[in-house]
């Protein structure tokens, strides 16, 4: 059974169609990349899956249940990290993890936090306020918060944006290692094509709110006669209609 199944999802704002008839699913242990130029509808799609934006039409089923009717139950078993969703800057790392641990109903919270601090190399910063952390440390904190409830589905909206290559690689390794151990499903958006090629099992390209391409990130570019995923991305961004419609 798919962890998440999206069917004919649409979202309109006045006369503008932000997401148009999008359908996809993600299986257990699968990391799926959701790619597209700015304004393609990636964050809109993620926000609808998080339940903070109501679709105009379509279905979102997570863990076999409708998000519309089982929102609290579903959100208990999923989590997310996004570059634009800051954790409270005035709270320390430890306080932030405690607050969100309670929000997600995490059992044995103190032990969980201890392990997270160790796994994400945040122990020495645990009493530092989130507002004083570097981008890399903040990203690690966001990810620690994103996995603290042992989610079965994680949404990552540009988790390594503005990070240097070394920290980005470390973050990718953390996530990949976590997915291998737990078989969590992941939906990952990014503008870093090398990163997507490295971590994703499958990618989908969004343009003007529609999925126009999907496939294996290692072979998809060649299927469309492009050198690499970055070149394919540029074509999607500039001439989406020149590519095959799905």
């Amino acid at each position, binding site marked *: 059974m798919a962890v998440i199944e999206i069917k004919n999802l649409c979202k309109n704002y006045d006369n503008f169609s932000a997401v148009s008839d999008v359908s996809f699913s993600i299986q257990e242990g699968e990391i799926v990349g959701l790619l597209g130029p700015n304004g393609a509808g990636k964050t809109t799609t993620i926000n609808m899956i998080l339940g*903070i934006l109501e679709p105009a039409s379509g279905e979102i089923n997570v863990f076999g249940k409708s998000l519309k009717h089982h929102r*609290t139950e579903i*959100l208990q078993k999923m989590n997310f990290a996004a570059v634009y969703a800051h*954790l409270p800057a005035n709270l320390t790392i430890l306080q932030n993890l405690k607050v969100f641990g309670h929000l997600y*109903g995490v059992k044995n919270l103190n032990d969980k936090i201890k392990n997270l601090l160790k796994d994400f190399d945040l122990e020495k910063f645990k009493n530092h*306020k989130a507002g004083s952390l570097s981008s890399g440390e903040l990203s690690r904190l966001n990810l620690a918060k994103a996995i603290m409830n042992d989610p079965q589905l994680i949404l990552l909206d540009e988790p390594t944006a503005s990070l240097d290559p070394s920290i980005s690689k470390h973050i990718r390794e953390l996530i990949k290692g976590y997915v291998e151990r737990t078989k969590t499903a992941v939906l990952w958006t990014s503008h870093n094509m090398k990163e997507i090629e490295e971590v994703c099992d499958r990618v989908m390209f969004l343009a003007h709110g529609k999925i126009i391409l999907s496939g294996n990130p290692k072979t998809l570019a060649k299927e469309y006669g492009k050198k690499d995923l970055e070149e394919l991305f540029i074509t999607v961004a500039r001439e989406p209609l020149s590519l095959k419609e799905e």
Partner: protein
Amino acid sequence: MRSNPVRFINIFTWTIFDIIQWGFITKYLGGFGGAVFSAVTVILGSIVLWGFMSRIQQGIMSSFLEDIWSQNFINFFASPLKVKEYLLGLILTSVVTSAIALMATFLLAILVFGYNILVLGLYILPFLFILFIFGVAMGLFITGLIFRLGPSAEWLGWPIPMIMSIFVGVFYPISVLPHALQMVSKALPPSYVFESIRMIIAGNYNIWGNLSAAFLLALVYLFVTYLIFLRVYYRNLKTGAITRFNAEAV
């Protein structure tokens, strides 16, 4: 609050300033004679209670604004937290800060001006309860307004206690107001509380009609403002306002 002393001081600042100012005003006016003196001591007690209600309202609003300013909104609303649980969190935070401010103003009134609000006896409990419910209702209302209109709408919230104090009889009996404004007073639960305080000081303890009316009215306001907030929340889910709440919504 532990990490930032300025936030802690903020709990007390305005209510303590009010007590000091009105304490000295009542001391001055008290020098004019006995009958005037008992009237003005009502004012200091009313200031303490009005400060409590204002603190409840502004506490809810401030906590909500903190979440917006810290760009933490999405984290809360994308979690399993339900809307009513979120609102309860805002209310509980406000209760704690208001209780601390209330104790501080009680002590200040006693120690500096020799005024003990407990002269009202156990009647103070229903007074506080009604003002608490109405303060929560006003807090929810202005929070809903900010949620609908954006962070700049906070400036609609700060003057509410001052504007409302004109109508609810904090400083003078409702009978002083023109008839048309008295009709507004009758629609506001705190009016009945402050009129009841004046009745008790004058030796008339037949206040249960007033308090029942105030309590029912306060519950109505609470119910309506909760519904308003929910309506705004569901509207914002449709429009996507929750996801882009740092921008102006109007």
